[in-house]
């Protein structure tokens, strides 16, 4: 199998290498990809949308349908992970730690539930005493990561960034919370239902902004029609529409990243993990 695979790979590679002979030279400004549609985008974007970052403008405005269905792909990925892995059966054994003495109790009877509070705390099966330095550093760091994520979303029009990047950074701050403390902390702070609602609301914001344009007299996703609803200079209305869409994308991506991580790391039981 390995030898056969190697032969197939060599043949395909030889064909592709032969094909590179026909490509335009490296960095050629007159190559076919750079001569037709992209020039229109580069020359007209600022005039039509007032957004300096051409990539964001093309992503959220000219190719809005693409991004909308991509957001739904992300949503579906989160849904798939939930459906594949989520396990609602309660685990029989539990582990508790007596806070003052450090004694660990292993409860095998599923009926018996100790009260978690000042005296006992709930711990994972392979319990490692929490590191003070890691906890403190992460507690200080997480708010800054989240503010940075919001900055990335809000400045997607002017600098590299946008809904996806900001959403992923926000989601990774939640994952950092789960890694530095334990998974229970994250699941208690943000309930599973809230994450699911966030993911759905993100897609809804996108589709909602796109749909509002229709009763205002335009086509689906034509942000220019939102001018009577929004304050400020009517020339900037497309930029504001893009910002709204990016916020929706960011919400959906943030929630889906957290859902996928929680489901993979706890095998769908949402009790213990890394």
């Amino acid at each position: 199998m390995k030898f056969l695979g190697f032969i197939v790979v060599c043949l395909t590679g030889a064909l592709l290498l032969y094909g590179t002979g026909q490509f335009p030279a490296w960095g050629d400004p007159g190559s076919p990809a750079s001569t037709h549609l992209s020039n229109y985008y580069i020359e007209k974007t600022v005039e039509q949308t007032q957004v300096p970052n051409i990539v964001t403008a093309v992503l959220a405005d000219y190719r809005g349908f693409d991004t909308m269905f991509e957001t739904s792909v992300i949503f579906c990925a989160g849904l798939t992970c939930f459906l594949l892995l989520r396990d609602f059966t309660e685990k029989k054994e539990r582990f508790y730690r007596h806070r003052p003495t450090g004694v660990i109790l292993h409860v095998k009877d599923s009926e018996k539930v100790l009260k978690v509070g000042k005296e006992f705390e709930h711990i994972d099966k392979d319990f490692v005493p929490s590191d003070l330095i890691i906890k403190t550093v992460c507690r200080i760091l997480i708010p800054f990561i989240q503010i940075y994520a919001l900055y990335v979303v809000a400045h997607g029009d002017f600098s590299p960034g946008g809904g996806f990047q900001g959403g992923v950074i926000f989601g990774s701050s939640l994952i950092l919370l789960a890694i530095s403390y334990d998974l229970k902390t994250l699941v208690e702070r943000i309930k599973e239902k809230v994450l699911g609602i966030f993911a759905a609301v993100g897609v809804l914001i996108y589709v909602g902004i796109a749909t509002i344009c229709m009763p205002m007299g335009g086509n689906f996703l034509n942000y220019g029609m939102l001018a009577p609803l929004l304050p400020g200079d009517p020339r900037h209305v497309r930029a504001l529409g893009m910002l709204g869409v990016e916020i929706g994308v960011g919400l959906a991506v943030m929630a889906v990243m957290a859902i996928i991580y929680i489901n993979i790391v706890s095998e769908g039981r949402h009790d213990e993990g890394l």
Partner: protein
Amino acid sequence: MTDLLPLIVAKYNYWLYVILMMIGLYAMIAKNNLIKKVVGMNIFQTAIILFYLSIGYKKDATLPIVEVGHEGQEAVVRALDYINPLPHVLMLTAIVVSVATFGVAMALAVRIYQRYQTLEEDELRMRLSEE
């Protein structure tokens, strides 16, 4: 020799992309572990993304972020001064879809391990034929 060097400089990037793509393809075909196969798929994806982005590159051009003048005096934007933004947009979506597929693939791997206690392809095939 004198006309070979410009050819190499103009094309060596594409050759290395093809090599990278073939590494990914080989991992997808020949590796036995399912997670290794997923890594191969990701390498293949990123090689294709790299290829698309290199198509959009222009010599002596700057980033596709327009310098906007102050109110009222908008400079004329020349297309030759900016890198082609269209491949960037297409590949941005591709990357985000790739992380979604990666997450689903990892969830599937965990599920397969829960049921068969293995991720090796030959052992999996053996377990499946036993049932």
